[in-house]
């Protein structure tokens, strides 16, 4: 079947392009939306608890669960030795993530065994009674240590173009340095959770807060020894995912299912916030070494980047995450000669995982940092240097991985944002103000984003949908995507409604379940709507074509004269209600259900050479941020932010705006207040909101102007010419980091480039200021005070 085009008449749209509220909004605000922990609990439900390792690396000398099993209320306790099939790995793609540690524990927080008891409190208390003894082994806790010991979870990958060494050596100027980029906890408000309900034939129904039901199904079947058709995984909604529920939900789902299989009773497993943060993976922290050759204009001739990320104890998704970091180490800039070496470091810490942006943000940070350094070395405004290095339209438009940048709209976006944010006027005003302000300094930065859309693993770029039309004219839709707040179901319902000329409310989307659409991909890589929206549209088109065919024959009207609009069908000028036609079709025995299937065209690349077209298209954006820094304490306030972001032609501007604003603030948290801290023994110390600080309400800049580039249109044939929006806006926050760096530079009258790592906590900011002052020979802070 041919892929239907979506370029129907714009003015006939009833649902698409409208800012309809999230389809669950009324349930959210009334408390009626049901999350897994709210599902009425089945009879005889048990509660589970996972006891995890409290050391980073060691051999399990002794594990005795007898005392645990003897505790009141305990129904079962399971460790690696008790697994029914002997299978004990839930790594996605690459092995390395045991359900329960076997002989060795490799991070503080690794699952060792699990208990099911009548209450959560009993399960926890009983778990504490087990005898667990370790022989501690030396642990690798940092990227530096891993590099020194050559510890890797996956082999190093290198991307080369041209001759980086030669171009850098021959370039008129060069800079080099090291940047450290911190990780990030997802801090979805709803923590990980699963509830497993055993059925007949040993079947298992698992409710899981997951972005990837099919993978959970696969793991549960594999570990429990069931066929996939005996396992159903259902996800109505998540209370946030952000990548943290792409692979990380598997442990909880599998453990709940194991205990349910063992006891024959339903089992719920909900770690509390501390356990959730200690047990589950986060955004990779990176260190990056850069050497860049450039000319007096600031144009880059060649780059040599070494990226090393903390992958933790296993590969998990680290391969594609680090690949994406490589693919975004150019961000928006043409780099003629390139060498990017990417090390995937193994450490005895939790295995890091997917997080909105998936390595892209870290890659972008490196090039943006280098550009800022170039500008400060040359004494040119960083925005000017950024603009000089942008990909060209006709030439200088091929990425280091050989994909051509075909739809480059960044020059237009930046130009527009320069005007609307009054960048240059403010630049002047700020420089003047800083000269009069000895203790507080302002900083300003404008940075672009170019983000590639598609799963880099090509085979994930497919989706399915199942559409049912009932005789009362209502539609029920299932697709493979999951709803985590991003509004996927809303957009998909809009798309399907418009195909039939119906209202958004006429389409009901029901929980994602592996029982309806098989073999789905994770809802990730920002591609939820591109894939599932299109698959659903195809399903809708199939039924619509059947209805048209039927109506044409029944009413003797040419198919071209049959139009669906305004909840009616016009058949050669005669109108009838949609429901009427459906009834006629039903009586004439026309099938009113259909599946839809879609595979993204064009994408293909060779992971061994890192060459090809990993992405279908790029999403663009730019941000201008202004901060005010206290040079005595390192505190700062983000005072004004202007965003201009490209979502193609928006299917739902309100939902897209929510992703833009929310993504930006989340990115700002990553680069500012969100700091992960491990103690010397490798134990995470920031595992609750009391110690891990995501942005709060007052952190939203006083002036916050976010706009959609409403003139944009996806040149690729993506559903309704929209663009993916989940991840790209997060990286707009890089402007905040550079505004802080700019304010620090003001301390040295812009003569020296400050060195700042991320996250830019007040402590790092003050250290950067003090380092700058030291280089200026000003040992005590704010000597100006005396003048």
């Amino acid at each position, binding site marked *: 079947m041919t892929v239907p085009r979506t370029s129907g008449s714009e003015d006939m749209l009833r649902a698409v392009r409208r800012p309809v*509220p*999230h389809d*669950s*909004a*009324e349930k*959210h*605000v009334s*408390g009626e939306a049901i*999350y897994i922990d*709210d599902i009425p609990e089945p009879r005889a439900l048990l509660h589970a608890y996972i006891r995890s390792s409290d050391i980073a690396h060691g051999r399990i000398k002794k594990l005795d669960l007898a005392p645990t099993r003897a505790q009141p209320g305990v129904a079962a306790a399971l460790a690696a030795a008790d697994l029914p099939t002997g299978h004990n790995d839930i790594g996605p793609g690459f092995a390395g993530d045991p359900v329960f540690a076997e002989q060795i524990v490799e991070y503080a927080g690794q699952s060792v065994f699990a208990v099911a008891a009548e209450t959560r409190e009993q399960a926890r208390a009983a778990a504490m009674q087990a005898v667990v003894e370790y022989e501690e082994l030396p642990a690798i806790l940092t990227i530096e240590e891993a590099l020194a010991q050559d510890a890797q979870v996956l082999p190093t990958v290198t991307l080369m173009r041209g001759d980086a060494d030669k171009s850098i050596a021959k370039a008129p100027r060069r800079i080099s340095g090291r940047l450290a980029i911190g990780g990030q906890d*997802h*801090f*979805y*408000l*709803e*923590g990980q959770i699963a509830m497993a309900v055993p059925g007949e034939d040993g079947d298992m129904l698992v409710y899981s807060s997951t972005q990837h039901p099919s993978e959970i199904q696969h793991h549960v079947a594999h570990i429990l020894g069931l066929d996939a058709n005996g396992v159903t995984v259902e996800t109505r909604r*998540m209370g*946030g995912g952000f990548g943290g529920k792409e692979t990380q939900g598997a442990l909880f789902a599998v453990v709940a299912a194991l205990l349910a299989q063992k006891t024959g009773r339903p089992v719920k497993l909900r770690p*509390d*916030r*501390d356990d959730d943060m200690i047990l589950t993976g986060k955004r990779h922290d990176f260190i990056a070494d850069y050497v860049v050759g450039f000319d007096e204009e600031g144009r880059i001739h060649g780059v040599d980047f070494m990226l090393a990320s903390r992958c933790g104890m296993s590969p998990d998704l680290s391969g594609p995450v680090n690949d994406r970091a490589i693919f975004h180490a150019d961000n928006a800039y043409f780099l003629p000669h390139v060498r990017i070496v990417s090390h995937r470091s193994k450490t005895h810490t939790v295995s890091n995982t997917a997080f909105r942006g998936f390595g892209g943000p870290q890659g972008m940070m490196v090039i943006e940092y280098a550009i800022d350094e170039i500008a400060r070395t040359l004494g040119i405004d960083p925005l000017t240097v950024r603009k000089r290095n942008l990909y060209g339209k006709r030439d200088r438009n091929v990425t280091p991985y050989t994909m051509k940048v075909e739809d480059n709209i960044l020059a237009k976006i930046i130009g527009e944002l320069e005007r609307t944010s009054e960048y240059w006027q403010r630049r002047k005003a700020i420089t003047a103000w800083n000269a*009069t302000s000895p203790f*507080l300094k302002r900083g300003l930065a404008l940075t672009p984003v170019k983000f590639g859309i598609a799963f880099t693993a090509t085979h994930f770029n497919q989706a399915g949908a199942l559409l049912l039309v009932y005789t009362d004219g209502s539609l029920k839709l299932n697709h493979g995507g999951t709803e985590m*707040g991003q509004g996927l179901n809303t957009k998909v319902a809009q798309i399907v409604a418009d195909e039939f000329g119906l209202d958004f409310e006429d389409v009901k989307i029901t929980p994602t379940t592996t029982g309806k659409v098989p073999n789905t991909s994770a809802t990730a890589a920002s591609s939820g709507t591109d894939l599932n929206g299109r698959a659903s549209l195809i399903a809708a088109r199939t039924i619509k074509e059947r209805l048209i065919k039927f109506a044409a024959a029944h009413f003797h009207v040419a198919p071209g004269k049959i139009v669906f609009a305004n909840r009616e069908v016009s058949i050669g000028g005669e109108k009838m209600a949609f429901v009427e036609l459906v009834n006629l079709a039903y009586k004439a025995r026309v099938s009113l259900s259909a599946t839809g299937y879609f595979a993204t065209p064009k994408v293909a690349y060779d992971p061994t050479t890192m060459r090809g077209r990993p992405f279908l298209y790029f999403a663009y954006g730019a941000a201008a941020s202004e901060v005010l*820094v*206290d040079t*005595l*304490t390192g*505190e700062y*306030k983000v005072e004004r932010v202007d965003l201009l972001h490209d979502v193609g032609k928006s299917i739902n501007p*309100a939902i897209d705006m*929510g992703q833009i*604003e*929310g*993504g*930006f*603030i*989340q990115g700002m948290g990553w680069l500012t*207040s969100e700091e992960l*801290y491990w103690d010397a023994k490798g134990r995470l*110390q920031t595992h*609750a909101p*009391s*110690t891990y*600080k*995501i*942005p*709060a309400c*007052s*952190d*939203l800049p006083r002036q*916050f102007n*976010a706009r959609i580039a409403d003139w944009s249109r996806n040149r690729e044939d993506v559903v309704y010419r929209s663009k993916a929006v989940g991840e790209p806006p997060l990286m707009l926050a890089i402007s905040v980091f550079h505004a802080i760096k700019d304010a620090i530079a003001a301390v040295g009258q812009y003569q020296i480039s400050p060195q700042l790592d991320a996250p830019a*906590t*007040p*402590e790092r900011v*003050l250290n950067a200021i*003090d380092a700058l002052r030291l280089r200026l020979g000003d040992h*005590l802070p704010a000597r100006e*005070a005396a003048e």
Partner: protein
Amino acid sequence: MVLFDVPGKLNMTGQIRFVLDGEVRELRGVAPTMTVLQWLRDDARRCGTKEGCAEGDCGACTVAIGERRGVDDMRYRAVNSCILFMPMLDGKELVTVESLKHEGRLHPVQRAMVECHGSQCGFCTPGFVMSLFTLYHSGKEPQRETVDDVLAGNLCRCTGYRPIIEAAQRMREYGAKDQFHRRAAATARQLAAIERRDTLALEKDGQRYFAPANLEEFTACFEQYPEAALVGGATDIGLWVTKRHQRPETQIYTGDIAELRRLKIGDDCIEIGGAASLGDVFDALLAEFADFGEILRRFGSVQVRNVATLGGNIANASPIGDIAPLLLALDAALLLRRNRETRLLPIDEFFLAYRKTALRNSEFIDAIRIPRARSGLKFRAYKISKRFDQDISAVCGAFALQLDGSRIAEIRMGFGGMAAVPKRAANAEAALIGEAWNEASARAAMRAIERDFEPMTDMRASAPYRLKLARNLLLKFFLETSNQPGATRVIRRDMAA
């Protein structure tokens, strides 16, 4: 029965009473440490209220507590139900997100949240709705500062807050009065009818809970159970239960004792009852010492301030509590009491060692006395943390200076986060007494302060940074009190107020 062998009138019914959705609920046999959140989700099957952290830091569990104001009016305050114990509901109205819809229609706050696209994943949303509900009922104008403050204890990971702020600013467009306004008098009467004048006494599974209604019964009770945990707002003890999985054997709740919640503004000093909540005293302290108000505001979210007590923050002797440094600088005194004996102790002598205080058996903080701002007193306080709102300080520094002509007659500096106890900077103070207040003396004191402290490194800050902050805050204090040109604060104080 030995368990309840305390003098005074005991309420032995073993039941607590509160109003929910217009009806008086009577519960028997609740465990003293059962949280309101547990009760709502597990027993009452009202699952709209969510758990995001169980430590009072995310606001997903926010509910509103209604209290009688006069005979026919009500006021509503937001609290975190995850660390509020069930018995504390006694005599109050409980409002949850499920209570808001009326005759099948969304409440104006809910409508605004829908129209402004204030929810994405929706998990934080019930908590935001309840915080906004209390703002709706406060009658306050929803300026950005007010909204920020009201929502400081509610975290949202999806929206970035902008649409929620808009909802706060537009909610009254969807209706200026709600069913709670309309039935306020009736609710107030219901509450009056269940008001307790005796000591509530509960016992379950070896846990005891007393809620004395007056000072006399309280002291008698505390004599009887000197090891009892005194609970004001449970923002600390709540964490023993939810985080450390401990169960205090005996708790005495101080929130019903009017005498201990007193606020007296005398000519010489402000006297604050040991069980007064931060919310109770916020306005008075803000008016007297602007920075005290600002620190209180940032000390904790509205939900925390509404229940957390000044006395509790002092008595738990946390080295990172934000109140003690301010009291140290302001030369406050504590009125300590044991039964009928009282003694006045300068706050300097209260903190003995890490989490150890001068409180004796059965002795408690009756009141805190803060000298009034004398003319010429210069007082500043600074709280440095990774995030401005609802974050524990890396360092909190407070400074009070009295000049005699151009000489320093008196200077006191209190610090939190710098030592095992909240502590004054003795060396730095000594370096300044009798000196002129100029940059040279300030810099000498900055050097001296390095001898005052040996801070530690933890997840909030490194030791060198803490020391740098102590020095720089002293410099900042000098700059702000000596007419130096140039602004020194990234958050303007007028915004804070």
